């Protein structure tokens, strides 16, 4: 029995390794999938001249390099091309390229002996795939079966999300908030069913998650209405062609969902654990234990959201500050939306604690009555 299990593991893991190898080979050589010409750098020659640049106390240099590369796809396949590149020591928007780097380019001149062109941006898909595999392998190694389930539920969620957003952009006049509300209900049901199975505990968690997320959204909406959205700077989202308010509300809804789900499942499963160990436990005791667990987890959960949201704004914040923008302006321009998301997520987390205690005790109470 044990031997066959080991055999199974070996076959499965070698299959996975094979799959990973093939996908990496594919993504490293998928040039023909792209219409835009891709160049692999074969030679990178630095130019001697370096320029110093910068404002007072912001030192830096700009360097130039000449690149020779081979085109990997399209009508000019295998042709040699010359490229020029300029990069700075800070590298906020430019890059220093090395031999072996793959870049997307636009061909400028094909009249002379040698082709010349402009660099658009580096090919990054290989790294995305490598990091994704790394993540999935670690989830699988550590989580085994439940790891596999959470990967499956993530992949399903991504596809459903993309499908729904596709429909939204195609439909005229559809409400994004309504679509996202539907998504939230769907995500909650599928994720929780996959994570903790089809049972009463899961129903209690699903109910608590949905009530918690929507109450947090309602609070956010009411506050935004009362204050006429004072303090929110949508400039950060200036690029969107739609109403930023609506997108922002939808993003709050989806953004807090994960954390709320986390709290709901933790509390309901601990309370059911207590109930299973002692079927005669009083509702009052259950409520007390639930509050105790809630107290323990709310601090660290609010921190998870806080850091996950705020950290991404650090580079832009630094750019503002280094350009001499006043502190309050830099903070409100870059952090107002992120802070709002983190705060509403935090409100959702805290609200979900009593809500999931209530839904769990309700289900347990109902079960006792029916007996």
């Amino acid at each position: 029995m044990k031997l066959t299990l080991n055999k199974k593991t070996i076959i499965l893991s070698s299959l996975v390794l094979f799959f990973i190898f093939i996908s990496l080979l594919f993504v490293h050589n998928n040039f023909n999938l792209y219409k835009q010409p891709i160049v692999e750098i074969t030679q990178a020659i630095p130019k001697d001249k370096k320029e110093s640049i910068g404002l007072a106390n912001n030192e830096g240099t700009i360097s130039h390099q000449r690149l020779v590369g081979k085109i990997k796809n399209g009508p000019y396949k295998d042709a040699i091309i010359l490229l020029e590149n300029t990069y700075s020591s800070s590298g906020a928007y430019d890059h220093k390229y090395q031999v072996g780097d793959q870049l997307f380019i636009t061909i400028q001149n094909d009249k002379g002996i040698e082709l010349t062109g402009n660099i658009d941006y580096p090919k990054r898909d290989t790294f995305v795939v490598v990091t994704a595999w790394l993540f999935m392998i670690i989830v699988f190694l550590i989580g085994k079966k439940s790891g596999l389930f959470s990967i499956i539920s993530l992949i399903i969620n991504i596809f459903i999300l993309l499908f729904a957003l596709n429909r939204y952009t195609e439909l005229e006049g559809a409400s994004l908030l309504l679509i996202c509300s539907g998504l939230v209900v769907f995500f909650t049901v599928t994720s929780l069913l996959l994570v903790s199975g089809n049972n009463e505990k899961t129903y209690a968690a699903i109910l608590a998650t949905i009530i918690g997320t929507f109450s947090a959204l309602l609070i956010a909406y009411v506050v935004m209405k009362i204050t006429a959205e004072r303090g929110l700077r949508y400039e950060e989202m200036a690029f969107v062609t739609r109403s930023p308010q609506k997108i922002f509300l939808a993003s709050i809804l989806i953004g807090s969902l994960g954390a709320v789900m986390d709290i709901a499942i933790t509390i309901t499963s601990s309370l059911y654990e207590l109930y299973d160990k002692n079927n005669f436990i009083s509702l009052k005791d259950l409520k007390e234990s639930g509050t105790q667990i809630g107290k323990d987890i709310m601090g660290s959960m609010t921190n998870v959201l806080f850091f996950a949201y705020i950290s991404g704004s650090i580079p832009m914040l630094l750019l503002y500050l280094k350009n001499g923008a006043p502190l309050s302006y830099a903070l409100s321009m870059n952090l107002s939306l992120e802070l709002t998301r983190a705060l509403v997520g935090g409100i959702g987390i805290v609200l979900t604690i009593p809500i999931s205690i209530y839904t769990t005790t309700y289900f347990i109470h109902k079960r006792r009555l029916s007996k």
Partner: protein
Amino acid sequence: MNVLVYLTIILFLLMKLVGGEKGTRSFIALFLNAIVLFVTVFFMTVQAINPILITLLASIVISCINLFYINHINLKSITAFFATIITLLFLITLIFVIVPRSMIQGFGIEEIEELTSFTLYVGVNFTTLAICTIIMGAIGAITDTAISISSAMNEIYLRNPLLTCSSLFKSGMNVGRDILGTTTNTLFFAFTGGYLALILWFKDLAYSFGEVVNSKVFSSEIISILCIGTGAILVIPITAWLSAYLLTKYKINLVTNQ
């Protein structure tokens, strides 16, 4: 009044109402973390200091706040603290391998189109900054998982003090497996929420799938969130092992003392 002020007050009242004294402490911890974060950003504007060093120091201060201030100093929080530090070291190695090669530092064209009046040559190395950003994004999730596992293992050990190191490790991993799914969900939805606008924009401008995957805005986010997720999951076996080791060692001391 400002939206942020209102929401902060509501959050504080709710935390106090639901969590009592511990809730208030959790809110203060959040506030302190925000201050640490802003001080860190301020220090990063000083060119002479290495940003990664500042970030590491900040991570240590933040884990102290999250673990020792909210939970007091005890074996649980000390275990979680060291597990966090060990995980951070692993994570930094991973980030150092991936980030510079994938060229995801700085800003994409979508982000700087609006900033024509700004100079981008500000004397900050944005590759280092990208590394710092990922570490900062991960620290909350890592301490959260670490303290959940170490306190659960503490409970298990208190109820069954005769467990061996390896079976204690196994129960720790079981607890970790339950947490893993919800942690990845939390991060995934936070990411999706934060970038909903961007996803819609890509769709409106009819970016092809290839353009989206290779664009800096998208790839830098997805690589960051995958690194953060990897850190939040790596902390599971590290905490389980450290906790099992320390708890069983502590038991040996107890026996020899008697």
